[in-house]
Structure formats: C-alpha cells, structure tokens
C-alpha cells in the first residue's frame, strides 16, 4: 500500500454488519457487479455518491456477521480507498487486507464529521483529521498482514510465496 492515503470521510456507527454492507440478496451477483450495491443495507445512496479515494470511518466491530468477501469487495469496487475503525470483525478484516483494501485500526476515532479530510500516514503511524488536527494512533498493519497489503493482496503475495513471480512492492512517492 502507499505510505499515505488522503480522502474524504464517510462516517458510520458501531457494529456495521456485512448484511448492511452487502445484503444477502446480492450474493447471487458476480464479483464485478457488487460495487453498485455497497452499503445498500444501511444507505442505498452511498454507492452512487462515494467518490474514488474516499475513506470509510466507522465505529467498533466493523463488518461483523457473515464472512462474505463480497462485502469488502463492494466497498473497494465502489471506490473506497481505506477503512478506519477502532476494531473489525476478524473475517471482514482479513478479507479486506487480502483484497488489498487497507482496514486501518486506531486506538479511537472520534469527532469526525461527514467529508472531513482524513490522512492515513504509515510513516507517522497515525490517522489525522485535517480539519481538527486530531491524531489517532495506528494499531495494526504489521507482520504478515502488512506484507500482504504491500504485495497488493493475498493472490500476488501467494504467487510470490509459491515462487511464481517476485513481489514488487509499491514504490514511495
């Protein structure tokens, strides 16, 4: 992943479920179709309004419930560049990382208003709200999860592990 992600915040509360992110009736849809239904269970207008590079800022336990990978995939295809939350349901978390979608964990995240500009800085290990200047400490993105994100997702990461192609990390700007 790139060391700095900058985007406008879309805020959600705690315990957003994968049924909220991608309702079960869309399970029959193909992978490449699901972006248009992102967050359909909680805000049917989200997918049409979110812009590429925007950031989802949510409360604790984001992505709980069904392990459907189409939930983080829908967010990614809708243009979401990263998610920031104090905690995630573990399957959602793993799925997001595996798809190359940074699911950033912070000690806490409060005082964020809709469309506040958010900066995620890996170098500074912090999430910054540009409007208020508030900084929140990064809690994750270390170890194997970080290696997978740096490879661009678990498919590229596995290809390298299996010795098929060397991982080419994304370069610094």
């Amino acid at each position, binding site marked *: 992943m790139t060391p700095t992600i900058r985007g406008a915040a879309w805020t959600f509360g705690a315990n957003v*479920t994968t*049924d909220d992110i991608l309702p079960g009736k869309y*399970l*029959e849809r193909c992978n490449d179709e699901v972006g248009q239904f992102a967050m359909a269970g909680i805000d049917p207008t989200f997918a049409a309004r979110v812009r590429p590079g925007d950031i989802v800022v949510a409360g604790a336990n984001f992505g*709980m419930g*069904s392990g459907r990978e189409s939930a983080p995939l829908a967010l990614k295809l809708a243009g979401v560049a990263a998610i920031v939350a104090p905690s995630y349901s*573990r*399957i959602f978390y*793993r799925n997001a990382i595996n798809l190359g979608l940074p699911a950033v964990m912070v000690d806490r995240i409060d005082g964020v208003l809709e469309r506040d500009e958010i900066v995620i800085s890996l170098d500074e290990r912090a999430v910054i709200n540009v409007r208020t200047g508030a900084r929140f400490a990064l809690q994750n993105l270390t170890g194997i999860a970080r290696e997978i994100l740096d490879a661009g997702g678990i*498919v590229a990461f596995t290809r390298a592990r299996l010795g098929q192609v060397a991982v080419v990390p994304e370069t610094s700007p």
Partner: protein
Amino acid sequence: MTLTEKVIARASGVAVVCPGDEVWATADRMIMNDSSGPRRIGPLVAELGGVRDRDKVVIVSDHFIPAANLRHAEILKTTRTWAKSNGIASFFEYEGVLHNLVLEGFLVKPGMLLVGADSHTVTAGAVGAVAVAVGSTELATVVASGQVWLRVPETIRIDLVGKLPALVDMRDVTMQLLGDLGLQHATYRAIEYGGPFTEKLTIEERLVLSNQGIEMGAKNAVVVPSQTVREAMRAVKIDAREAFLLPDADARYLARHTVQVDKLGPLVAAHPSPDNVTAASAVSGIAIDMAWLGSCVGGRLADLRAAASMLRGRKVRVPTLVTPNTADVYRACLADGTLQTLANAGAIVNAPGCGACAGVHMGVAGPSDVVMATATRNFRGRMGSADAQVFLGSAYTVAASAIAGRIIDPRDIGIGGSA
C-alpha cells in the same frame, strides 16, 4: 497449551506456539459452499497452479438449492462442473448444509485444522478440530498452496456444568452466553468449551456451541472431545484409535467462565442482534407473521423433534416453515413420524439447505414482517427486508410461538398431546 494452541502447533510443525505468534500451518481440510466456492475461487486457484490436494477439499451447494432463478441455476452448474473437473470426491448438492455434512460424515476429525469460506465454518470445532473461516480469495490460496497463515489466538475457556431443565435446550445455553458476554467478547480469540455437562453431549448438541462462537466474534470455537465423540466415530466405522488432542492441565486462558445450565430458562435474542438476549417471558405477546425452523444451528434432528413435541395435536397460527439442515435429518424425521406431526400441525417442509437464513430464498422476510426463528443470527436485513424484525429462540420457543401466533415461553403451553 490450550486445545487450539495444540492443534495449531501440530499443523504448523512446531512443538509450542504462544498467543500472538504468526505461523504458517498446513490445512487438513478446505471447505466451501456454492456462494463462496468455485464461482469465486475457481479462476484464482487455476492462476495459482491448481488444486494442491483434492482429497482435502469439501464442496457443498447449500445456499442456492433448489435454484430460485436462473442466476442460482448457473451458480449450481459452475459449482458442480468445477468440482467434477477437479476430481473433488467430497462434493455434495441437495444433501444439506456444508457445516452439518462435514460433521455427519466425519469429513473433519478431532485435532484437524480446517479452513473454510463461510463464517459458520467454526461449527466443525464440535469434534475438537480447529475450524477457521477465511474469505474466498484466501481460501483459493490455501487450496493452491496447502497452507494458511494464522495468528495464534488467546483462548477463552467456558465450562458448562449441571443439567438442562425441560423445554430448555442448547440454543438457550449459547443465547445466555451471548447475552452475558456480547458480540465482541471473543473477537480474534479462540473459545474452548469443556466441563462435565459438555462431556456427555452428542455431536449434534456440541455443534450449537461451536456454531454460535462466531456470533461472539471467535476465530474458532472448539469443544473438548470426549468418549461420546469416540463412540460416535466408531458407530460409523471411523477409525478412532488415535489419541485425541486435549488441552493441557496447565493451559493458560485469557479468561474463564462457568455456566450453571440448571438455572437457564427459555431465552429470546430480540431484533436486531444475537446478543440482545432476554427471557422469552419478557417479550411474550409480540405478534409474529412467520415462524422459521432451520439453519446449520437450528435445523438439526433435535430441533425438528423438539418442534414436533410442541406441535403434536396442535395447529400453527402463522406460516411456519421447516428446513431440515441435511437430507439425513429429513429422512430421520420422515422415518420417526416427526415430519407427519409437523405437517399435521400446518407447517411446510422445505428442501434441506441454508434456506431463508441468509436471506436468499425459501421464506425470506418481507417489509415489517416479524419472524420468530432458529436462524443463526438476526442482524437487520439478514433474513430479507431491512425493515423486518427477526427474533431468535430455541426450536421449543419457535414452535410454541407458531402455535400462539405470538412470542411465548414454551413452558406456558407445555408439550403437545396426541397426534
């Protein structure tokens, strides 16, 4: 080490693991369904060099059977074709739910490491295996490489003691735990169930404990295997001579909880969360539009028999759908008269599978519907409309509520009379 640590250590080829370690482990089983499986992982597995060990792969079409539309039919065909062309012997369709079939056929055995693309993969922990859910893309990498990376979780130990009162069942036990501990108690952690009550449980009873572990956020939920597991394996001629992996006496747990099951009564998890738990009597009187008996956790033989015991000689007041979770459960209920009792009471029996639990088909909830169900979870929109309300309970409570047309404590009406 705890049981989960022991299994992960064995699977990763090291003597000892500690919570927080990151290890690469060899998976003994890789399981998937028609939604998470070949349609999504097929192209990725091919890209990564193909299926590494086809004997470890289990594929079950359970979400989209029987097909309700052309998309479903195409998914079923893709699943069937991929399973056959890759020589997957353990492929089943129209046989029931993946999680139940894996246990019925002992496709998972004590001490195994199982990885599956479905959150209720944890169910396989019922026989003392470590069963961990991942997404489709990651499962593709496991099928191609044989390996999965795991962060060794801290373990929470839950001991169950006592004897269940009448008309209270395993689901009331897990609802009590969810109500006490909440949705996030076990996030990133393992749960280990043991204690004298647990030792005597059948596999079908054990699976309620492991299955509902995911609703507490668990990475895996393992039930310490006992003589009952060994006997169940012998009964179907599965070699059970090997010593089971068991937790060490000096295993270190993050937390310990003990539940006296004698003290439990019928419970209900009110909309919209499995941890929104209250006594059935406290929500008694809420009118319902539909009752649903089914799912990997609530469509077991014991559930259908419990429902029949309530419905015998009575009639349901609201549409009542019954979805046995496997074809074997269906046949057993046919043979012992359970289906006859349910049908006489006015219930409709569906094809074995996941049915309406995931909001896909066969009884999804409409706008403003109030549903009383044995489903796995009741988040907003889970069973269909985002405006529907779903209440969860044991099969006793769901059947009693179907008879009353409103939520009711099953002890208020007791079991039914003659057919």
